[in-house]
């Protein structure tokens, strides 16, 4: 039985972590590799690194950053932000990413998803979907109510989030990174209606993103059908570690992975906890 993944996200610009980080035991909190290693130590199940560099130099630095992360961490690493072509993907995978996330480039040329899946395998291909609520969201036809936007939410695409995610699955995407643009940075929790609407249409894993401010939000996302939950604010801006959050989730009946093996699992024996979680056999 798969264990829900807790995924801290690192926004990196010009080779440095963008958001403020307050871990006291980090000598250099702006160093992405040091932060990544700290997250792994705390029990992160996977990391996402989003390159938000605006310049060619910044994007070249991102490749170096991926290599530096890979040397340090022994958990999966997804890299997104500047991946616009097969060549970009090959570069990031060669540097040490395990998966690449494509967003705008996939919307502009959906065949990119198929080409990436054909060349690297579906398990390497994440499609990042940024979705914005439209006025009819949550009404009788909720599946028609989320628009796919690109370029940090500034440009509409004419695509619907549920239809686009189904198309991505058909094209060979191995995973959907689903971000609510309305909730991103707001801290009021994931857009659960959006999650459910996309969940109904695809059998590939979904990573929920945008809006999580504390562990209950992660729990809500998992219950609404996410296979993994991504968060930046919780771990960056608060004095809560991944281990703290996993302990809370375990106490609420969710299965979690212990960082170092079976001993010392926050939920006790890993056999004991999953039955109470949302990932039970009934789905």
């Amino acid at each position, binding site marked *: *039985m*798969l*264990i*829900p*993944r807790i995924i801290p996200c690192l926004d990196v610009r010009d080779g440095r972590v963008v958001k403020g980080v307050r871990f006291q035991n980090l000598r250099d909190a702006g160093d992405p590799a040091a932060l990544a290693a700290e997250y*792994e130590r705390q029990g992160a*199940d*996977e990391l996402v690194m989003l390159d938000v560099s605006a310049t060619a130099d910044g994007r070249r630095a991102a490749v170096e950053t991926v290599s530096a992360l*890979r*040397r340090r961490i*022994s*958990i*999966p*690493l997804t890299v997104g932000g500047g991946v616009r072509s097969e060549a970009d993907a090959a570069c990031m*995978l*060669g*540097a*040490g*990413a*395990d998966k690449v996330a494509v967003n705008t480039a996939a919307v502009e040329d959906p065949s990119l998803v198929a080409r990436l899946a054909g*060349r*690297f*395998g*579906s*398990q*390497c291909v994440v499609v990042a979907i940024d979705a914005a609520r439209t006025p009819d969201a949550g009404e009788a036809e909720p599946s028609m109510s989320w628009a796919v936007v690109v370029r940090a939410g500034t440009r509409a695409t004419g695509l619907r989030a549920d239809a686009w995610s189904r198309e991505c699955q058909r094209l060979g995407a*191995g*995973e959907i990174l689903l971000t609510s643009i309305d909730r991103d940075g707001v801290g009021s929790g994931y857009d659960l209606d959006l999650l459910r609407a996309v969940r109904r249409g695809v*059998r*590939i*894993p979904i990573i929920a993103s945008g809006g999580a401010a504390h562990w209950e939000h992660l729990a809500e996302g998992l219950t609404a059908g996410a*296979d*993994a939950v991504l968060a930046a604010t919780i771990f960056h801006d608060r004095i809560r570690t991944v281990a703290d959050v996993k302990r809370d989730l375990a106490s609420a009946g969710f299965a979690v*992975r*212990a*960082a*170092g*093996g*079976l*001993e010392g699992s926050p939920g006790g024996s*890993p*056999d004991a906890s999953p039955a109470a979680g949302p990932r039970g056999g009934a789905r």
Partner: protein
Amino acid sequence: MPGSRPVIHVVRTPTANIASVLAAFDRLGVEVAPAEGPDMIERSGAVVLPGVGSFDAGMRSMRENGLVEAIRRRVDGGRPVLAICLGMQILFESSEESPGVEGLAVAAGTVGRFPAGVRVPQMGWNLVKPDPSCRVLRPGHAYYANSFRAAATPPGWLGAWSEHGGPFVGGMERGSVVACQFHPELSGAWGARLLAGWLDLSGVPTPATRDLLESGAC
């Protein structure tokens, strides 16, 4: 200290993304060189057979590089091999992924799809429960990224099991051959200890593997 680290060999296939494998062995103090051709497979102290991509592409690469017989001889002889993900699947006779394509067939049986209704690809952490007689595979959480799996342990192999729509073979071992459907190189400290255990069994110990194995962690 270049040159002072023990060297193992990795089979390069065009579909394999092996940066994580290289990084994991580097952390353990082992040099990983590409296995260029059957002679090197024959002579190497320890061979890693990684691979992502399709069963067909993996086998085509084995055939085109003339590695099929050399790998078969190593596995049949129980000499150190670590097969990861697709590397494990091509040990079998065939796969539903690529009907009609013959695998290395050093493990009896076939690789099939997960049952309908479960998340595919299986992407994430899952509990591994090995046969108590396993020497390298241990209980713990492993990271998987796969759409196909073996449903039965081949005769003569010790198995480790995980559950995803029913039990499947998460790993198996025979002699010094260890095969993992999961990715030990991405399975955190537990995975690092597994790699250290295989290196130790293969007669390639390093200070880092000894530390890991003696610390009792994981």
